[in-house]
């Protein structure tokens, strides 16, 4: 009960969209982009478009891709999803001469990203890696919730019940992100909100990871005080329903 179009939005905005946070968290990723000034656009027919931009040792994501140095065009969401799976090799429709960036920079970046998002059990034994991997997943999941709430037919039903206002998603006291709801459209904002209508706070990074990995259920954790919810709880309730679908798409 998933659809290729929604998966394409998740793959672009949440998976590739997490590369900027990867570059903040991982030294190897930072090294790869430190001298780059380039933009890489993705255009999917019947699906999303957007771009990863690199300059001054930083990366960021933007919705605009027409003026990118390199553009990868895909004839369908399925083809784009194939690139993410590694079953489709993209050919630039613009910037063919810059293909070296794709091979020498972008591909290694995605390899590092995969090492965090599909982390080996042994790697997760390292607490530093564990934390980076979980923080990266947190960013990815927040973006994926927004995409599913805006595109997936069942996710849209959940979003239709979400009243306007910010939902604060937090791990412990130090890390928080925002899901902004306006007219039932969700936007992930990768910083803590100044004000919020509701909140869902995970006790610590270990619990967050267990929830992300599906080892713990948020409803059960509420009773134990490991997940705190408050404010306009109907927002959190519906975000939780979308969160269930994140696992469905990213499994």
């Amino acid at each position, binding site marked *: *009960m998933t659809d290729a179009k929604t998966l394409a939005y998740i793959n672009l905005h949440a998976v590739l969209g997490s590369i900027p946070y990867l570059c903040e968290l991982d030294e190897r990723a930072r090294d790869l982009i430190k001298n780059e000034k380039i933009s890489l656009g993705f255009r999917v027919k019947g699906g999303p478009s957007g771009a990863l931009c690199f300059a001054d040792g930083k990366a960021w994501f933007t919705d605009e891709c027409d003026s990118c140095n390199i553009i990868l065009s895909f004839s369908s969401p399925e083809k784009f999803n194939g690139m993410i799976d590694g079953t489709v090799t993209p050919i630039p429709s613009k910037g063919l001469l810059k293909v070296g960036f794709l091979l020498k920079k972008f591909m290694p970046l995605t390899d590092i990203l995969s090492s965090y998002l599909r982390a080996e059990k042994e790697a997760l034994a390292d607490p530093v890696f564990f934390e980076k991997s979980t923080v990266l997943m947190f960013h990815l999941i927040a973006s994926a919730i927004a995409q599913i709430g805006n595109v997936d037919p*069942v*996710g849209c*039903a*959940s979003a239709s*019940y979400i009243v306007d*206002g910010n939902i604060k998603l937090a791990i412990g006291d130090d890390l928080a992100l925002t899901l902004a709801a306006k007219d039932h459209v969700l936007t992930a904002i990768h910083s803590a909100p100044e004000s*919020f*209508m*509701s909140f869902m706070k995970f006790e610590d990074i270990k619990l967050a990871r267990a929830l992300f990995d599906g080892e713990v*259920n*948020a*409803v*059960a954790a*509420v*009773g*134990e*005080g490991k997940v*705190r*919810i*408050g*404010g*306009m*709880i*109907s927002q959190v309730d*519906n975000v939780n*329903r*979308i969160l*269930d*679908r994140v696992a469905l798409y990213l499994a």
Partner: protein
Amino acid sequence: MRETYTYDKSREAFARAMKVIPSGIYGHLGPAEGCYTPVEAFPFYSSKAEGPYVWDLDGNRFIDYMCAYGPNVLGYNDPDVDAAAAEQRALGDCTTLPSTKMVDFAELLVDTVASADWAFFAKNGGDVTTLAVMTARAYTHRKKIVFFKGYYHGVAPWTQKIDYAGVIPEDVMHNIYVNWNDLDELEAVFKKYKGEIAAVISQPYMHGNFMDNVLPADGFWKEVRRLCTENGTVLVVDDVRAGFRLDIAGSDHYFGFEADLICFCKALANGYNVSALCGKNFLKNTVSGMSYTGSYWLSAVPFAAGIACINKMKRIGAPQILIEKGTKLKEGLIATANKHGFDLRVTGVPSLFYLRIADDPTLMLHQEWIAECVKRGVFFTNHHNHFINAALTDADIAETLDIADEAFAVVKKRH
């Protein structure tokens, strides 16, 4: 200032439960669905109950305004109801041949509920809302069901939403959702799906969660009734929550119309497990031909309890008493809130009042106040309507207002 409660024994029991029961306490009595925020403010398990009170495992006493989410209508352990149940238990309960207590109970309901020509018994509210919808579909040979947004009709797949775990799109594909009190929208739906709508199902007024409860607009029910009649659609009133707290003859009677099918449960037997679907004669044959039953649905003890409960509610004029007590509490709570500068909204019929502090749209202020009340011995919940029971005394209401006052003072000091 009162000493606030602690819940060590509840937490110990919950830790045991988490090992063997999904989510520890599931459903509406659980801390997540019950919106226990912050969770530390709430007890999890009871040790005993009596009249309007429940005691938790740690020995804390609460004036209970949830009434087990409705079943406690006369007071916990009502002596008349319990005596009738005990008498029947000595004779037999779940037996191969049903007891005639079932006939007695059906006769009593037909005599009591204005729109009832017959009664069919089950266990939970959801059993009879499901039967109502199946009956409407069987009678009309149509598929579509109209709901009013904010509804709650149980947990069967057809009552849930497309995004709920375990629900598939096919479960809800014939559901049509319209806004409460919006007759134009309802009329448009009847035009769009002419000849396709089996039933309109609705609670007697909108008592959804996270929102102020809304009574029917003037003329609303009369028009809904007209539209259903003109379109050959069955009108189902889900009186599971409100039943007998507005009107002993049914909430349709209270609002001046007649349902084709009306569902009862909560207040039907003061906590004994029985529900009932009552209906008009023209649907009796349809129900007669349906395959719908359950292992305990014909048990005699709950029937005996139900008879005693209905008779006592009639004798004491329960709905009026409950509304009067609710009104007294409502007025007292509003005045207490005003004293501290808070705008407390109390909506719905007073016997089923819903609370919201309107000063803060996030509801966090409201949640703080509710938590302070609970920790001092008044069991309110955050975002569900409450229930009044007949055992509640003026002294209980006075104590409630005293605790509410203290809770408002604590919250005020913080902000």
